[in-house]
């Protein structure tokens, strides 16, 4: 395939910046030797809004709404992490019913996020049919979330000390009905991603991360679990109601893109099961515990399993009505390091899929990629869309 007698042209390809990885759209730069990626570099900051600083200027209640908007896809997890950390500081525990509802919403959010990711990464592979189908089905879970909390995105289900929304019998029924439909569809998708030959060509054996690599590079979430690293905070350090409603860790040992697809889809079945269990055995009682207005001085760490991996919150209170320091560490940043190293040695055509494989909140990453031709110093512009098309065409040519 590679023309060895021709001096390969070296290119630098910046990708991004429309790449909103949780709170920071990334900007990647790949150096390319012919078709092979030889180096990679990340630059974040296109969505750096200064939330951590802003959190120091807002009071405990206002911060709830600010932090919910760290990421629009896993907003519940961020609000939940904040609430749990503040509750830890104040020595308050939310009532069991509230904790169960928190987990319920978190799992619904995981379903929505995984469906979203499946669609977007199928789109990167040029499989738009799967994209449209999975987004159509995703609307089912969006309806459920809306019915439960009143919002499609940024549910605002949490409040300090508990939750704002309750689940009644009618809602429980509609959730069960929705899950039934989704489960049937998920079986279909699992079949598609593990049997469709042209799709497997884009995923099987691509972007392989071994277990040792995943551990050393600090990969987390489904990306790590696809490399057989059993790290899932819902099991390791159960929070909220995960103690009463345990989950099974889904693992895969292959570590390639196919494994990442399978792990995420199999996690959906775990979520379906868990939600049904919660609906069956929803504890009775209050929804909110009383919170003090001022949070006692101290430090708290809270780690949660977001759909993309571990979210880390550190909160320090000085005893006032505002936090003294609030640190958010989102999962994508950990996985970015690994993905940047993974891309080296791969075909340029595989880069979109490898990036999509870690689920870096990819929804709007498309568009605007610059290609700088380093061989003659001239600059050429290549959009992400073009790079994606390039990848699709590359595999089409290969198939011939």
């Amino acid at each position, binding site marked *: 395939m590679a023309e060895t007698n021709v001096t390969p042209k070296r290119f630098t390809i910046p990708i991004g910046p429309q790449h909103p990885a949780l709170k920071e759209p990334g900007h990647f730069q790949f150096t390319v030797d012919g078709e092979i990626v030889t180096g990679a570099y990340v*630059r974040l*900051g296109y969505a750096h809004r200064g939330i951590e600083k802003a959190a120091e200027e807002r009071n405990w209640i206002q911060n709830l709404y600010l932090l919910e908007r760290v990421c629009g896809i896993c907003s519940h997890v961020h609000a939940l992490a904040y609430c749990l950390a503040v509750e830890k500081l104040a020595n308050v525990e939310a009532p069991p019913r509230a904790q169960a509802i928190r987990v319920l919403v978190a799992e619904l959010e995981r379903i929505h996020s995984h469906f979203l990711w499946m669609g977007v990464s199928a789109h990167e592979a040029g499989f738009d049919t799967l994209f449209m189908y999975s987004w159509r089905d995703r609307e089912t879970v969006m309806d459920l979330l809306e019915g439960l909390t009143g919002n499609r995105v940024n549910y605002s289900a949490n409040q300090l000390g508990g939750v704002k929304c309750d689940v009644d019998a009618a809602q429980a029924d509609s959730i069960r009905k929705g899950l039934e439909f989704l489960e049937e569809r998920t079986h279909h998708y699992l079949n598609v991603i593990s049997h469709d030959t042209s799709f497997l060509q884009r995923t099987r054996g691509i972007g392989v991360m071994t277990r040792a690599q995943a551990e050393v590079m600090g990969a987390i979430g489904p990306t790590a679990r696809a490399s057989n690293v059993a790290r899932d905070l819902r099991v390791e350090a159960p929070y909220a109601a995960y103690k009463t409603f345990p989950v099974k860790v889904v693992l895969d040992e292959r570590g390639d893109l196919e494994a990442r697809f399978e792990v995420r889809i199999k996690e959906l079945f775990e979520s379906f099961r868990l939600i049904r269990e919660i609906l069956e055995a929803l504890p009775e009682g209050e929804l909110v515990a009383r919170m003090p207005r001022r949070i006692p001085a101290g430090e708290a*760490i809270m780690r949660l399993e977001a759909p993309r991996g571990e979210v880390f919150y550190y909160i320090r209170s000085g005893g006032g009505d505002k936090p003294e320091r609030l640190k958010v560490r989102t999962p994508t940043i950990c996985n970015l390091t690994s993905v940047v190293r993974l891309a080296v040695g791969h075909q340029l055509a595989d880069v979109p899929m490898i990036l999509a494989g870690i689920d870096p909140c990819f929804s709007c990453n498309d568009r605007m990629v610059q290609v700088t031709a380093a061989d003659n110093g001239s600059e050429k512009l290549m959009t992400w869309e073009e790079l994606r098309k390039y990848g699709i065409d590359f595999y089409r040519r290969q198939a011939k």
Partner: protein
Amino acid sequence: MNTEEIMNLANGIAHAWDWATETSQPRPNHLDVTVKQLKELLPIAVGLRVKRLGQLSAIVGLDLGLEANEIEVLYHFCPGEAEIVLRVRVPRQGGELPTLSEVFPIAEVFERELHEMYGIEIAGLRNTERLYLPENWPAGVYPMLKDFDPKVLSEPEGKA
């Protein structure tokens, strides 16, 4: 390894450096290690890594204010349910820390963030380019310091 074993192991590591550290355990799963001698930070971190406790979750900077004139840096290691925190202090101006990125590749991004948010020099960091802040950000201005004043970010072309 369950949490108790992890904590015992981590306690053992911290005590091996007891001339340079101060250890407390406020919660059963939380170990707080204050590292008083900066050059011992890396060896302790390597110790944790060797014992497979080196899941570096985050590096958090804390500006202790103008009076203390120090920045506290917290290295959070979170294997399983346990939380092991290494604390070091550096002066607010001209502070320098050794890099952990040779041992923990993930530390690189955290350290770059620490550098641009607090102005702490990280000795031995290969890539010190900006990670979050815009390219036209004024040099020597660090937004996470308590005395940061957003007014220094004046409008470039008078468009407001």
